[in-house]
């Protein structure tokens, strides 16, 4: 069978980060010894070239906080040299004019800045540090240097009622794109699920606000809004299908089919220090385990809707979390015998207390 070709490489340059978002999708063991040995500059550069040779066109420089890497300018130049389109995915607190100019001349293509809330005080409370003003300054610098700008805001029960303000903020900052990312429950978000889970009413009102905004403002700004999938009854093709479109490289060089795959026990992740990316994509255990449809169990195997190649059975990590078996049908699917667990998860929110993402315990802002 013809192997699919990857399109996106997500380079998680470092898990270090000055913020403490309670919804952070990074692994909960970011402080672990194995993540402290970060890849060297040469490893990343080789990985970019090997990614391009496999078909990758889009490079996301992410983390943790990618701006904490001292070789970031060099990495942007290497990305351009390899023929990739690069996006910096940053919380913005280190995106000063001086550094931004250096990144621009090195060939960085696009800047995405996340805000925790459009309200300064709430932003700083959710982030667990004072960062709002710096983010706004960063967005203005990105515009002045003529970067295309995306604003990202992760949504949950504690900020969903401010979607209208998020939309206006993105417009005011001159963003080209706005990603309204409803929280996905992996990493730290699992520990905080009770404090993050929105009500159906909140989601419905937010969706209406998005509709009104699109009508009023038109195509000037591209607003991405996706309903969280626990309100659906057919799953999405997670990451465009396992091992089909995306490659994630963790700070220590381990290569994953998605950011959350490290939670799946028994999966072996090959490392770019030891193997060429081509072998990892084509042959490694982690990429081949759930690629295609061969691995599927019932009800996917004899899906009544024939959707095997449309959704690839949904999300493996969600299947694991809700059924204990990573090879089960994603329980979001109405044909899953565990669909009732997704329905139960819709019962909203029971606390407003956060557990903050931290390597050590953070000092509260």
């Amino acid at each position, binding site marked *: 069978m013809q192997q699919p*070709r990857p*399109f*996106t490489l997500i380079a998680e340059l470092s898990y270090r980060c000055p913020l403490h978002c309670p919804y952070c999708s990074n692994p909960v063991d970011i402080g672990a010894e194995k993540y402290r040995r970060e890849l060297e500059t040469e490893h990343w550069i080789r990985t970019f070239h090997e990614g*391009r*040779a*496999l*078909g990758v*066109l*889009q490079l996301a420089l992410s983390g943790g906080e990618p701006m904490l890497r001292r070789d970031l300018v060099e990495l942007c130049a290497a990305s351009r040299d390899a*023929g990739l*389109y690069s*996006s910096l995915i940053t919380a913005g607190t280190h995106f000063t004019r001086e550094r931004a100019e250096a990144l621009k001349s090195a060939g960085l*293509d*696009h800047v*995405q800045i996340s805000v925790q809330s459009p309200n300064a005080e709430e932003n700083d409370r959710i982030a667990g540090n004072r960062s709002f003003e710096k983010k706004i300054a960063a967005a203005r610098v990105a515009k002045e240097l*003529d*970067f*295309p700008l*995306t604003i990202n805001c992760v949504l949950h029960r504690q900020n969903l009622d401010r979607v209208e303000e998020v939309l206006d903020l993105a417009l005011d900052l001159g963003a*080209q*794109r706005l990603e309204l990312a409803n929280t996905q429950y992996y990493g730290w978000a699992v520990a905080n699920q009770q404090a993050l889970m929105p009500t159906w009413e909140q989601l419905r009102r937010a969706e209406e606000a998005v509709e009104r905004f699109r009508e009023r403002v038109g*195509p000037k700004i*591209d607003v991405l809004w996706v309903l969280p999938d626990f309100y659906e009854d057919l799953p999405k093709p997670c990451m465009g299908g396992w091992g089909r479109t995306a490659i994630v490289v963790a700070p220590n060089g381990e290569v994953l089919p998605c950011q959350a795959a490290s939670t799946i026990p028994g999966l072996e992740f090959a490392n770019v220090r030891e193997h060429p990316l081509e072998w990892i994509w084509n042959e490694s255990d982690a990429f081949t385990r759930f690629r295609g449809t061969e691995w599927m169990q019932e009800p996917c195997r004899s899906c009544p809707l024939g959707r095997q190649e449309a959704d690839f059975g949904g999300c493996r990590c969600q299947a694991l979390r809700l059924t204990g078996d990573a090879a089960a049908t994603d329980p979001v699917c109405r044909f899953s015998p565990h669909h009732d667990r997704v329905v139960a998860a819709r019962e909203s929110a029971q606390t407003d207390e956060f557990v903050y993402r931290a390597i050590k315990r953070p000092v509260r802002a």
Partner: protein
Amino acid sequence: MTRPRLATGARLGYDEVRKEHVLLVPEGAVRLNRTAAEVLELCDGQRSVDEIVGALSERYDGADLRDDVRGLVEAMAQKGLVVDAAA
């Protein structure tokens, strides 16, 4: 559309792996045939649409490409990939 140019952040490239021209944009890529790539290359914010048509028909032995060029530029503008430098 007086003087079309690529939208901020859009960049033309050639994908050696898939052997096709692409327009790279934040988080995406639009596949282009050769003619489309040639037209977009001429969308530099200096030339008018008529000048682009002129430059291209010279390359193609005087063929009348007016409708093709206009159609393509309009379609790309609708998707926000091409903007008017004069606006």
